[in-house]
């Protein structure tokens, strides 16, 4: 009875061989090359603000800095498919097989999982794509840095500034998910601190909603002056399109609490004009940001302009490489916490964000800008979308370090 065994063995063998050969190939590449893995969303709803654009920006950072600092660095990439189990198994495998730092990781559930693994294995995790303040709060880690933005920054940048400029009564349309409810809670706090009022809110099921007209009608009936959209991605896009359709924009100001340049691009200016939003980066902000954007644009998918998360990946990797050069590749590969400590010890400076610093709890500090989307007449062409309205200084833009509850931070009383 020999026949049954052969094909089965062959099948199982074939299955087994694939990962095994990969593993060996990766080990051979170890040595003194610093390996950076970009773990991001390439096939899901956050593909455009993160995805291949993040990979392009990491490659740009390596091209700009690694050689000049005398380092050799290699970039690999994977799609976490927005699933924590896939994301965390790739992260574990990468770290165990010689990847020194993981970059980007949108979707908070995946980001939190990767942060835990990075700490267990004493590697480096440079987050740019996730929104949750948890990463630098209760779940902070000596191996994690959080770069581009977070919900607190968005809430403060938008909530306070809009209320101060006459938008004193608010209504929220909120995704019934942790990020949506947290965003709403934080914005409410700033609106009320500025003397504004929240007249109502509606939480809708995420991700199963495509039609928002019912919620928009409720918002209209509340007679609030500002409509806060505490959601993300195509949900925000749908809200904006439909708000315009139902004539809400005549009486209400639309505020996208979590929006990116790629989403404004996708909406088009006729639909997105006059929208208010907060971002930490815009390519046309100053001389240096324009220079950065010009350098990276050829690498970007469809020659898009980089968004804030993309720029965050660039800035984070640039600073990581500087710290790595100071410590030497041997220490960099051995002790992730030491690299992050090194990154905190020196000030940051790069073309995307300008000067700034990495705080003790892992929070990167830079200014937050409130923008208004230009009208089609104001825009000079593709990607010329924002006009600045207000700027919050770096030290005030993010959550005060004592409020986060990060165990790494020694409380001032001690």
């Amino acid at each position, binding site marked *: 009875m020999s026949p049954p065994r052969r094909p089965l063995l062959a099948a199982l063998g074939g299955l087994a061989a694939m990962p095994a050969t990969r593993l060996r190939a990766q080990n051979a590449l170890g040595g003194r090359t610093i390996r950076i893995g970009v773990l991001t969303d390439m096939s899901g709803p956050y593909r455009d603000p993160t995805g291949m654009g993040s990979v392009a920006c990491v490659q740009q950072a390596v091209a700009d800095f690694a050689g000049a600092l005398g380092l050799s660095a290699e970039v690999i990439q994977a*799609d976490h498919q927005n*699933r*924590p189990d896939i994301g965390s198994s790739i992260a574990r495998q990468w770290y165990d097989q010689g990847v020194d730092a993981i970059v980007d990781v949108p979707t908070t559930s995946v980001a939190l999982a990767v942060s835990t693994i990075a700490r267990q294995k004493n590697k480096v995790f440079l987050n740019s794509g996730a929104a949750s303040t948890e990463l630098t709060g209760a779940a902070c880690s000596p191996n994690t840095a959080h770069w581009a933005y977070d919900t607190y920054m968005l809430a403060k940048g938008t909530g306070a500034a809009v209320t101060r400029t006459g938008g004193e009564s608010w209504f929220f349309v909120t995704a019934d998910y942790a990020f949506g409810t947290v965003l709403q809670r934080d914005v409410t706090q700033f609106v009320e601190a500025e003397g504004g009022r929240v007249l109502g809110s509606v939480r809708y099921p995420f991700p199963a909603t495509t039609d928002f007209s019912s919620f928009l009608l409720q918002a209209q009936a509340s007679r609030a002056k500002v409509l806060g959209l505490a959601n993300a991605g195509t949900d925000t896009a749908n809200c904006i399109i439909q708000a315009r359709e139902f004539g809400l924009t005549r009486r209400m100001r639309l505020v996208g609490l979590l929006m990116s340049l790629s989403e404004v691009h996708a909406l088009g200016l006729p639909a997105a004009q006059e929208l208010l939003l907060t971002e930490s980066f815009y390519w046309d902000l100053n001389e240096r940001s324009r220079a950065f954007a010009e350098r990276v644009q050829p690498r970007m998918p469809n020659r898009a302009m980089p968004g804030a998360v993309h720029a965050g990946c660039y800035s984070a990797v640039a600073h990581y490489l500087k710290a790595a050069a100071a410590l030497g590749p041997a220490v960099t590969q051995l002790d992730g916490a030491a690299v992050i400590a090194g990154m905190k010890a020196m000030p940051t400076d790069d073309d995307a964000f300008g000067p700034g610093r990495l705080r003790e709890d892992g929070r990167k500090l830079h200014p937050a800008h409130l923008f208004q989307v230009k009208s089609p007449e104001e825009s000079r062409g593709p990607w010329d979308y924002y006009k600045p309205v207000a700027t919050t200084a770096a030290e005030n833009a993010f959550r005060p370090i004592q409020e986060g509850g990060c165990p790494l931070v020694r409380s001032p009383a001690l």
Partner: protein
Amino acid sequence: MAAPGGFSGTDFRKEEAYFLGFTQAQVMAFVVLIAFLLISPFFLYPVFLMKLLCFALFACAFNLLVGYVGLLSFGHAAYFGMGGYLTGHAAKVWGLPPELSILLGGLVGAALGLVIGWIAIRRQGIYFAMITLAFAQMVYFFCVQAPFTGGEDGIQSIPRGYFLGFLDLSRDLNMYWLTAGVFLAGFLLIHRIVHSPFGMVLKSIRENEPRATSLGYRTDDYKLMAFVLSAGLAGVAGGLKSIVFGIATLTDVFWTMSGEVVLMSLVGGLGTIFGPFVGAAVIITMQNYLAEFGAWVTVIQGAIFVLCVLAFRRGLVGEIGNWLRVRL
């Protein structure tokens, strides 16, 4: 669901028990499986293997219902996900040891299966599938609303702990042996169930339910029993997964997870003992190793499903078995 050319595997009259209810070919395949479980952690990445085994157990549990009773559930994510949540909560918040936490996950899965199954088994075919889907969506809604699940952030940093108080599971290899042990126990349990007199009644229900009823069997009781067992094992698989990865999140209760386990069983071969394992291996390998192809991952996955339906309808194991004229 007994349509012409139904999906219930290969029909071979000659089915002699050779060893513990296994046929000769199955014994050989089983030896290969054991060898694979023993050797693989030394040349494959253990966490990847653990993930594979968790999903293989999930698929085996699902296959018990669809392959042997002919009930296609489209809501198995509910038991898998709730098992995961409860295990995670027990291990993290209540500080229970991993073996108890996983057991608790299994019990929750079974209890949920008892309630949902009691209602769902009154319907057949596509309507059964849709009722299970409906209840699974309600469970999902509960998980979004309930505070203990942590919304879409999920339960994070679940400790692996010490198995029976002494075996340190934070070492991947130790965790692997526990996972492999649980998988094997579940696998053998399902095999035992299928080949028991109880299992024979289940198969007779699959082939011809009115006839089984006319023979005096209370078919509803049998179906419910199989449903509860399947849900319980799915809960164990979910619990095991949350201990392995240290996370329990909403993706595990979402309907796409129910779809995924259907795919695993189909790709491997419905109603075959080894099919779910092979199917889980194929799907999990695709998810992990196609990840670097970025956006093409869904396209490649879709193409493989299309290919499976058009060319390998019995599933990989079913096709191999058919080709060799043995039951695997």
